[in-house]
């Protein structure tokens, strides 16, 4: 008897976890934003949107994309709002007609190159890919100064980055680097036995522990690590060949059951309150009037000297080549020989 009561209780709790209330609206956000940033956002969101239940699904951008793509293929999309870091995937979603058009009044101040002219997605934050190096293993003078140098034999066995099949920022970096330096650059990285696995936090921990000496990584991971532990043996290197911008979009799915709530959340993330929450998560804002994240170089300094200029042409071409780039990268860097 007691057992059956317990089962009933479990079933009820499971239903509650799966279902949610009746009058409240539920918005499911698929994102690659770090859990600690989500945790900081949650109380603010709860206060701003008392009538909306927000469900987060957090993974690497490419994992999120793979999941949402198969949901679309199965005709059953759970996401209402998407906020990940691979801009090319949004272009793809837009071309296939999966995104809801919404021209938020808040998006006005965003530079045009970072704002979809058709109003289906907008850059909500701008993470930046840079270099890092383990300061206790590599002397000052020997630090890598450019992305390019990582293909030099001096770095054999010593370098790492994220997996572009999992992480949107790693993919964006691969796309930019191959456009700038060609696939020979990646042949060099393979010769150096570069370890490309996991996300940026995994890269950080590999460099911090000295498993690898240097890596290609998101600036925000380095800023956060330095803020937590000023003596951590890692340095931020803004590459002389230019940082890689990862303009990270936000979009509403056309299939959403709660378009109003989704639009309100969309506006919130573009508002000063939403933007400063993201900036305090160590990401740049697409609005140039906002302060840079604590400890980072000013907006203009970084954005005026990037590896590649961010243009619509670049966006479109890379979107078309997205699967090819991954395949080439996998066969050059990841697959056994």
């Amino acid at each position, binding site marked *: 008897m007691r057992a059956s009561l317990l089962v009933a209780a479990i079933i009820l*709790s499971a239903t509650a976890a*799966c279902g949610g209330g009746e009058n409240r609206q539920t918005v499911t956000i698929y994102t690659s934003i770090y859990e600690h940033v989500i*945790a900081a956002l949650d109380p603010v969101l709860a206060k701003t949107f008392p009538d909306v239940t927000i469900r*987060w699904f957090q993974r690497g951008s490419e994992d999120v994309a793979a999941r949402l793509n198969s949901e679309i293929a*199965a005709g059953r999309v759970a996401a209402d709002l998407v906020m990940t870091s691979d801009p090319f995937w949004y272009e793809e979603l837009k071309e296939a007609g999966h995104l809801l058009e919404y021209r938020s009044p808040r998006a006005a101040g965003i530079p045009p190159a970072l704002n979809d002219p058709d109003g289906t997605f907008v850059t909500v934050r701008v993470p930046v890919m840079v270099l890092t190096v383990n300061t206790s293993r590599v002397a000052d003078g020997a630090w890598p100064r450019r992305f390019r140098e990582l293909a030099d034999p001096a770095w054999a066995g010593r370098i790492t980055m994220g997996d572009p099949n999992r992480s949107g920022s790693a993919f964006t970096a691969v796309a930019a680097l191959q456009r700038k330096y060609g696939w020979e650059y990646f042949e060099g990285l393979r010769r150096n036995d570069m370890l490309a696995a996991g996300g940026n*936090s995994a890269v950080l921990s590999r460099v911090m522990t000295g*498993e690898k000496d240097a890596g290609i990584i998101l600036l925000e991971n380095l800023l956060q690590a330095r803020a937590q532990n000023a003596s951590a043996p890692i340095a931020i290197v803004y590459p002389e060949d230019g940082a890689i911008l990862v303009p990270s979009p936000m979009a509403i799915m056309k299939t959403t059951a709660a378009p109003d709530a989704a639009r309100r959340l969309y506006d919130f993330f573009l508002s000063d309150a939403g933007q400063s929450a993201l900036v305090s998560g160590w990401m740049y804002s697409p609005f140039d009037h906002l302060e840079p994240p604590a400890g980072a170089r000013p907006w203009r300094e970084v954005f005026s000297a990037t590896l590649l200029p961010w243009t619509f042409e670049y966006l479109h071409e890379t979107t078309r080549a997205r699967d090819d780039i991954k395949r080439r990268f996998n066969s050059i860097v990841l697959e*056994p020989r």
Partner: protein
Amino acid sequence: MSRFVGRFGGGVAAGLLAVVTIAPIILVVIRSVATPAGVTWRHYQEAFSDPANLQAIGNTLVVSAATVLFAAALAIPAAWLVARTDLPGARRFRALLLVPYVVPPYLGAIAWINLANPTVGWLNRAAGGTVFDIYTTTGIVWVLGLFYYTFMYLTSLSALENMDASLEDAARVSGAGPFTVLRTITLPLIRPAILAGAFLVFAASASAFGVPALVGTPARVHVLTTRIYSHVTTGGLDGLYTAAALSVPLLVIALLTWMLADRLGRGGRITSVTGKASAPSRVALGAWRWPICAAVASLVFLTCLLPVFAIVLTSLMNVVGDFRWSNVTIDKYRYVLLTRPDTARGFINSFALAFAAATLAVAIGTGVAYVQGHPHLKARRALDLCVNLPYAAPGTILALGLILLWSWPLALIDTLWVLLLAYVAKHLSLAVRSITTAVRQTDVTLEEAARISGAGVMMTFRTIWIPLLRPAILAGFFLVFMPAFGELTMSILLVGPGTETVGTVLFALQEYADPPSASVVAVLILAFILAAYAAAAALAR
């Protein structure tokens, strides 16, 4: 009329059980050739033209075979030493050597990644160079073997302990020395049990996901389970069907080896249970006693202490690898438990799911065991299949089947329900076995006496069977609860927004998001599972 109702009810129950347990696996096989778009071999062509997949089949066989050899090298001497020699502390070793049986192997993978990372592994630092490299095929075998040797250890141990000791005594009296007895009598007699254990290890290694995913991926070593996983997670709808095609060889490997293990296990049981005439005379190890004791102790050190030490220490280090006192901190615990909302959610989900799955499994298991204990009731064969197929089939394939089965028209996918179904189907066998053994050992006249006394079937079930089977039901509950709590292989394919489990939280941290924090979750899972193990042991007493 009531008989008709009884039959009808029984049929419905059996049908539901079949939908939960065998339907997903059959659907995987069907979908590998017959998709909603039509019948096609395209997915087989796709799956088997990819050299990475062919390589994965080879790797699966190599890893599994090597794990069997490594496990045998550990398990057989260990079982003989604790069961048949005057090894000091044999009884304590007997229990300690079983601990890896209840711990999820992926925890071992995380521990050994800390210990034997080629550049910064602690063992390599201590050795002053790269001596050990966990990111190799050998690394996968090492970690799997240190966990799965317990299967062989268990089958060998029970054969040794059930063997009639007079068989060995007779050889001694005939003039054979202790090692001649071991070679000519003991080992041949327990060979079926050893082989059964070997096949279990093979099947488990071929089905393993967590260890090859964590250890093999950085080494660019893929096995079937990790390839299926990547087809499912990144291949969209077509990827599901390619994964189904790739599942078929894995299913064949797992089921064949499992059937061999089962058949040998049965045979072994019959020959070994000849009654216990006397306590076995123990072989005196003489001068070797203490060196061998040290060797067994070092095995316990390798399987239990060193990995636990590694993950506990990692979880307490601010900068991993910095061994100064000033570097010790509980910040990571604070971060993982308080800042990341997914950790607490994972623990709540896993606890609720494991509890519900264990409760359901013992409820269904009691019914199944009751039917098995009544030879005149029909459908025992079919029930056997329902219970054992999902247990023998790799979890990856069961999960893929659940995805195919529950996406449409009833979309349970991404809910806790589908995880619950997965856990119940996978672990039902453990509950059924525990309870069936107890039913077989219970005199059927105890039931008949109640019937004669005026109690109907249900009344007899409630007043006689349930109380008599309570210890076995409790044991079955824990046998399901512990693996369900730490489950990873199926969960990783089945979790959706808000339905994270501890296994998937840990996997995501280790493999993608934040390896240093993974050690914290690993410590918490380990502590929880060992506490449950201790509770089960205390309740069983």
